[in-house]
């Protein structure tokens, strides 16, 4: 219980630090969102119009920073992230959540899929180390060291442009289907997700695989694995003894990977012109959309915080040694 409270306090402090940093960072950027917005308007802009814009979007930008900070905190506490400047009059939260599902759907699925596949392959390649299957290791190493934007672009070029097996941009066919719970839309989404999904899995799979294989090889030299053989257990049970222990560092890495999910979305979405939080962030930054930047940063931060909490719990559940010993 004490451990839990300590973890909670640490999480709260982390949350406050990021919330504050999120407030400060966009304000350190050169320029000002109002000027940016006015600059975009064509024709003559009257001082009244400028005042109106300031009143609408300024959210008190001419107030002292400390007062802005206070308003920011209070609004945040009420779940109000403000109004987006770029996508006005939509609120920041509705803009973000509109895109978040795309990101979670594509990159979340890809992360989980590559983790499961990579780990399973790692168990197998670790178990058969020294056999011919070791030839896959350099291939995996190559895939792991190739940056995603190179491999992703290459795949788009080959499979979408040349072979026309997959659509090369977008998240669904906007000309024929309309978003909603209808089969045509879902089918279109699934079709458009195939290539990005396959590319991400292909790219991140090898990392999981190599990690798991190496852990497997290390664990297999442990006495308890030899003991499992000595006990006359069938092969798959011996393998399980090793794999069950070898997977622990993988779990820790998985929480890190999920934490990076939203930020990793940036490149993926650019390469495949897929919609999502990554593209939104690029837009928000280039338009100096303070509320939106803050909102996205907060979403990223809270994903990391929540995921690492989930990871901690999962790890404790999987590894009894991390539990505090009960006093007898």
């Amino acid at each position, binding site marked *: 219980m004490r451990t839990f409270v300590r973890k909670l306090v640490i999480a709260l402090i982390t949350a406050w630090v990021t919330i504050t940093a999120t407030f400060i960072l966009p304000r350190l950027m050169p320029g000002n969102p109002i000027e940016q917005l006015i600059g975009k308007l064509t024709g003559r802009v009257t001082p009244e119009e400028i005042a109106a814009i300031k009143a609408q979007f300024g959210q008190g930008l001419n107030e002292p920073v400390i007062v802005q900070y206070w308003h920011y905190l209070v609004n945040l506490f009420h779940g109000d992230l403000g109004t987006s400047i770029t996508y006005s009059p939509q609120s920041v939260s509705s803009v973000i959540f509109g895109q978040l599902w795309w990101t979670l759907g594509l990159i979340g699925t890809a992360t989980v899929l590559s983790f499961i596949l990579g780990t399973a392959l790692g168990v197998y390649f670790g178990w058969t180390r*020294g056999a011919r299957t070791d030839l896959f290791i350099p291939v995996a190493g190559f895939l792991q060291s190739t940056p995603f934007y190179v491999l992703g672009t290459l795949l788009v070029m080959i499979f979408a442009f040349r072979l026309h097996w997959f659509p090369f941009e977008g998240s669904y066919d906007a000309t024929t289907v309309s978003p909603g719970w209808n089969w045509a839309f879902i089918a279109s989404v699934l079709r458009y997700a195939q290539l990005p999904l396959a590319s991400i899995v292909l790219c991140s799979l090898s990392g999981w695989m190599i990690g798991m294989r190496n852990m497997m090889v290390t664990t297999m*030299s*442990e*006495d*308890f694995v*030899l*003991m*499992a*053989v*000595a*006990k*006359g*257990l*069938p092969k798959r*049970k011996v393998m399980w*003894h090793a794999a*069950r*222990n070898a997977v*622990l560092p993988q779990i820790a890495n998985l929480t890190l990977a999920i934490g990076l999910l939203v930020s990793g979305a940036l490149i993926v979405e650019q390469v495949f012109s897929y919609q999502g939080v990554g593209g939104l962030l690029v837009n928000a930054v280039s338009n100096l959309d303070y509320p939106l930047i803050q909102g996205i940063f907060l979403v990223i931060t809270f994903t990391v915080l929540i995921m690492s909490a989930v990871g901690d719990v999962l790890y404790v559940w*999987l*590894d*009894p*040694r991390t539990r505090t*010993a009960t006093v007898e």
Partner: protein
Amino acid sequence: MTTSSNPVLEVSHFNVDYGVGAAAVRAVDNVTFTLERAHVLGVAGESGSGKSTLAYGLTRLLRAPGIITGGDVHLHLGTDADARRMDLLAASEAELRAIRWKHISVVMQSALNALNPVRKIGKEFDEVLKTHNRSMSKSARKDRARELLGLVNLTPDRLERYPHELSGGQRQRVMIAMALALQPELVIMDEPTTALDVVTQREIVAELQKLRQELGFALIFITHDLSLLVELADEIMVMYAGRIVERAPALELYRGPRHPYTLGLMGSFPPLHGERKVMTGIPGSPPNLKDLPGGCAFHPRCPYAMERCTLEDPMLSPIEDGQRTVACWLHDPSVSAAVPVELRRKDAALAGEAG
């Protein structure tokens, strides 16, 4: 060698190498012995003498690059009517799986490493019982596990514990209880008490003695602590550089070692019982198996070395009417030199005073 009446394990000319070709190193060299049913054989020697390699070789548990390069190992299973003799070195993986733990079980030096860290003790027991006895019910398995823990003086609540929650002694007791789970004919223990403190060592050896009288399993007990073996073993085999250098009934070996190396080993450990004595140890360090000296491998460290020891390797030969065997030129009838008094006596009260 005496003809065996009721053996459980027969080993002849057993060799184990590490590596192949020119880089190969012989870790177990031409080892031959027979273990009688319900007997305890102690194997003693320094680190690198090949005693653990022998144990893992016999049970076909060697890890790469260890390779069995010769010899025969036969295990006798069952009793009287349904007795059969199994060639362990020729056995397939499936055949080995069938006899493992049921007929031969193993206890390793570090019980902490030998128990799966993420599993409760109860699950480990359950798995072993279930694998070898499919018809056993879950509650019967649990009862059996409790009973086994009782054998080694542990309370049944340990079944709900993880290995890291037990003390070193408790863990090793768990391992011993587990090794006895299926009532095997043969148990091999590789330095089971080395990682424990002296008091716990003593307790465990006493428990083992009791268990073996009750259950009647044969035991190969490997250690570098000769004085521990004297309490437990019927016979002791001393190994040096992969070979057996002396073999004798436990008490006789303790009272009167015949090989200079055995004498040195005895001077290296305080006895569990009896008066204090001066520890002497053995000069030099264990031999490099890659580059063994010519002649007797022990001669560079031997205080009694003669010219012949540097030239010819002594064979393991019977002495004293075949009661015991030793591989040392000092005891060869053709050697005229007198056997030193400390390697001649029948009842040395203090073996450690030589040196």
